[in-house]
């Protein structure tokens, strides 16, 4: 994994996007890993009864992907300090979901980001913000927890 450094980041910089695409089996595994029996995530007939065209990707799975996206920007020695997001739209399996971001400010060693998730029509499903602590290029290996 690459490491970003504080000196290399400035407001307006885009964060390289992360593309996710969940299979139905993956949605099942995520329900299992979180002990979540909600039928909307594995039972298509039930999801349709509730008015959805298909089973839905879990909000928390999208949250985990957003965290992965921000942690990817932070790198192994960076730390994610804060993450906020709102669920605005539904996400479905077998469709590309793209995570994008932009640096909004740099104050001290804390970088603030605007982040969001788009579906394959470009609609924003989950707008959010994040704060990350980045290491300085001149510090020794090891970082601080």
């Amino acid at each position: 994994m690459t490491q970003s450094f504080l000196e290399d980041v400035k407001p307006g910089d885009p964060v390289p996007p992360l593309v996710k695409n969940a299979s139905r089996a993956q949605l099942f595994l995520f329900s299992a890993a979180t002990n979540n029996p909600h039928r909307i995530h594995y039972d298509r007939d039930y999801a349709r009864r509730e008015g959805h065209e298909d089973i839905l990707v879990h909000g928390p799975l999208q949250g985990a992907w957003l965290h992965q996206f921000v942690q990817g920007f932070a790198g192994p020695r960076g730390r994610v300090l804060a993450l906020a997001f709102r669920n605005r739209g539904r996400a479905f399996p077998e469709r590309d979901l793209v995570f994008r971001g932009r640096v909004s400010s740099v104050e001290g060693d804390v970088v603030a980001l605007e982040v969001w998730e788009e579906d394959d029509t470009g609609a924003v499903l989950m707008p959010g913000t994040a704060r990350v602590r980045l290491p300085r290029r001149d510090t020794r290996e090891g970082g601080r927890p």
Partner: protein
Amino acid sequence: MSLIPPETRALVGKRLGEPVSATLSAREAERFAFAAGDTNPIYLDEAAARAAGHRTRVVPPGLLVWALEPPRPLEALREDGLWRDAGPPLRLPVSRVLYGGEEWEYRGAVYAGDTITAETRLASLEEKSGGSGAFVLLTMETTYTNQAGEVVAILRGQRIAR
């Protein structure tokens, strides 16, 4: 006429329910990491975790909410697969509660083997009116503390009750 009964408004600032604790295993952390497709080695490999400045393998923070939920018997299952009585113990004259969003503050990593305690309080209740009528915006704040008494994370979760 207010949507918020006085006994519910009196709960603002108070703790909701009892604190819950759980010990997070490396295995459940791995399961979550793989299921999310996030194979960051700090979640999976001891040496990689230490090289990144951690004391041992890190638990993906997305697992916290779920790992602290206690197992329930089948009788507690609703028809939709959600649990009965799983929401906050508040009374509001609404027909549904929608998930609004989350704000996480991460103060320290959660490590495999840590025992985490979660305590939730009702941070605020606001009555609002929107295009489709009146609704209540609830914010609940959950503080996650490890076995050393350190706050590792704080979650502010929003719900829309209408």
